[in-house]
């Protein structure tokens, strides 16, 4: 019993907001004022960041490799689109939550399939579920609009007051607030004892089970939460672009997501956010150089990252910031390389 206070002080100390984190969010908020002509692309980044955050919850904290996370994104996107199109729930915030819950229900039921078996089976099952949903969406084209997608979605003002404008200003702040709230929630989750137990499972499921952690129930829980996040990201996609088409389920979306998270690093929540920014900038850069063949460069980035080694790249990227911080404060950097990568 004597170790309990130590554990709780450790957890509380880890959960404290650091100066670097607060600075990060201030910079993010400032972007809205600094680049008023870039709302659309910044909205996309925010959306991708939320999506990457949801993958980080299962990949970085629970070690589940998923190739089909677009399934939940797609369910969220179509739910939000259908709710708005048929005027069932016209208020965007409520629709957002409902769409997230729809993805969450799917996540809950598919989690039982995913937690069975080893990595390879998980890859196949997650990929299969995304493909299955894509095939379903194509099959029931009278509901989903098939390859044309849902058309004619008209969004009502948020909370009845803030209407979506053509420059995407409302959409940007709306997405950013959603991202921030969900980020704070995710931060709370991963720094709770529940989050600690997830990390134990990631590092060694057998040992975690031996010290009394209900492994399967924890995995089901975090997978369900992650599905909710992905669903909300999908719903944001539909609400801010007034569009939902079959490609929300596509494999490329899941693969891009992986790339984002890998660029940013897994297991410390900010990885998805940073990765989304870098990914989007890379994509813009490559598509201005070679509009048609940017896929090649994205592929090259992936290959290089893996060959050089993810941990090593993050050490290089953090060398300069760490040096500066050490000069000023005389202690170690705020953002560090996550302890260990899931295998």
């Amino acid at each position, binding site marked *: 019993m004597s170790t309990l206070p130590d554990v709780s002080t450790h957890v509380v100390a880890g959960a404290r907001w650091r100066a670097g984190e607060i600075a990060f969010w201030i910079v993010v908020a400032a972007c809205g004022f600094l680049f008023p002509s870039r709302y659309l692309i910044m909205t996309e980044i925010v959306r991708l960041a939320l999506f990457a955050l949801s993958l980080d919850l299962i990949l970085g904290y629970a070690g589940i490799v998923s190739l089909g996370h677009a399934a939940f994104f797609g369910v969220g996107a179509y739910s939000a689109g259908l709710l708005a199109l048929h005027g069932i729930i016209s208020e965007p915030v409520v629709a957002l939550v409902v769409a997230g819950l729809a993805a969450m229900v799917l996540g809950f039921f598919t989690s039982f399939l995913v937690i069975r078996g080893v990595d390879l089976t998980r890859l196949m099952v997650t990929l299969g579920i995304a493909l299955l949903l894509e095939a379903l969406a194509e099959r029931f084209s009278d509901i989903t609009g098939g390859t044309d997608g849902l058309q004619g979605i008209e969004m009502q003002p948020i909370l009845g007051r803030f209407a979506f404008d053509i420059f995407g200003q409302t959409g940007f702040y709306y997405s950013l607030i959603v991202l921030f709230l969900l980020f704070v929630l995710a931060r709370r989750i991963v720094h709770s004892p529940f989050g600690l137990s997830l990390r134990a499972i990631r590092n060694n499921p057998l040992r975690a089970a031996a010290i009394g952690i209900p492994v399967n129930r924890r995995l089901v829980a975090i997978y369900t939460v992650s599905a909710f996040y992905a669903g909300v990201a999908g719903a944001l996609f539909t609400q801010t672009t007034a569009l939902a088409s079959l490609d929300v389920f596509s494999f490329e979306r899941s693969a891009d997501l992986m790339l984002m998270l890998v660029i940013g690093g897994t297991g410390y929540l900010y990885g998805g956010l940073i990765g989304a920014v870098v990914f989007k900038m890379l994509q813009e850069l490559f598509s201005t150089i070679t509009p048609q063949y940017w*896929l090649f460069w994205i592929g090259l980035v992936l290959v290089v990252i893996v060959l050089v080694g993810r941990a090593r790249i993050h050490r290089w990227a953090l060398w300069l910031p760490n040096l500066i911080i050490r000069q000023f404060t005389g202690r170690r950097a705020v953002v560090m390389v996550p302890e260990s990568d*899931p295998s």
Partner: protein
Amino acid sequence: MTSLFTILFDGVAYGMLLFVLACGLAVTLGLMNFVNLAHGAFAMAGGYICAVLVNNSGWPFFAALPLAFVGSGAIGVVLERTLYRHLYARSHLDQVLFSIGLVFMSIAAVDYTMGSSRVFIKLPAALEGQFDVFGVGIGRYRLMIIVICGLLTVALQLILARTRFGSRLRAAVDDPRAAIGLGINVPQVFAFTFAFGCGLAGLGGALSAEILGLDPYFPLKFMIYFLIVVTVGGSSSITGPFLASLLLGIGDVAGKYYVPKMGPFVIYTIMIVILIWRPNGLFGRTAAR
């Protein structure tokens, strides 16, 4: 009744083709435990080599097929020696990311050099059309595929079971450390097997241009099919993937014929159910590796 036999025949041809395409992956993924999502890229390479030789250089189709095998095998051995071998010991996540990167690069590279539209290979006149056997329409091209792939399967089985190389490979896969101790050059065996599997994929790619269609997105479109063959078939022998390919081929053709609207739905559902029921595959070993 006749349509039933035609479906069966087409399904078997399709399944045999899938087997030749995927059996290299059965070794890398099933035996060496390397998640290689880029296997389809080697098949695509073979298909394009064959297409260029036949359409642009005027080679006869049957002379271009071995070249497709050799070409893909050569690309395979180069990539294995330079890139893949560094990743054998890495996590599955790294392997997935790496091979997705390769797939993306191959798609863009082929799109850049060959154009994005579908490529057709000019077939010799002898392979076109079909003839009737007891009222069942038999396509000549599909019959040739069944013959070639059938012979290959028998040859593979013999190589694995009867030759010295086969026993070396099985030893290297079962226990690499013990195999090294016995003086078997394990990396060499793996490299050769990898290249051979890529070569087979290239041959399959050349043969499948007519049936599956050949365009830059080939590796992504059929990735899931290759993975299904290997995961459903299990990894204990090549019989498992072979039966799984036949099952998949017949199931897919029959599904498209009888319930065209459901599309690939049937296949994915069957795959998920089988994987939930037997995570190690239908014909897999019982112990987890």
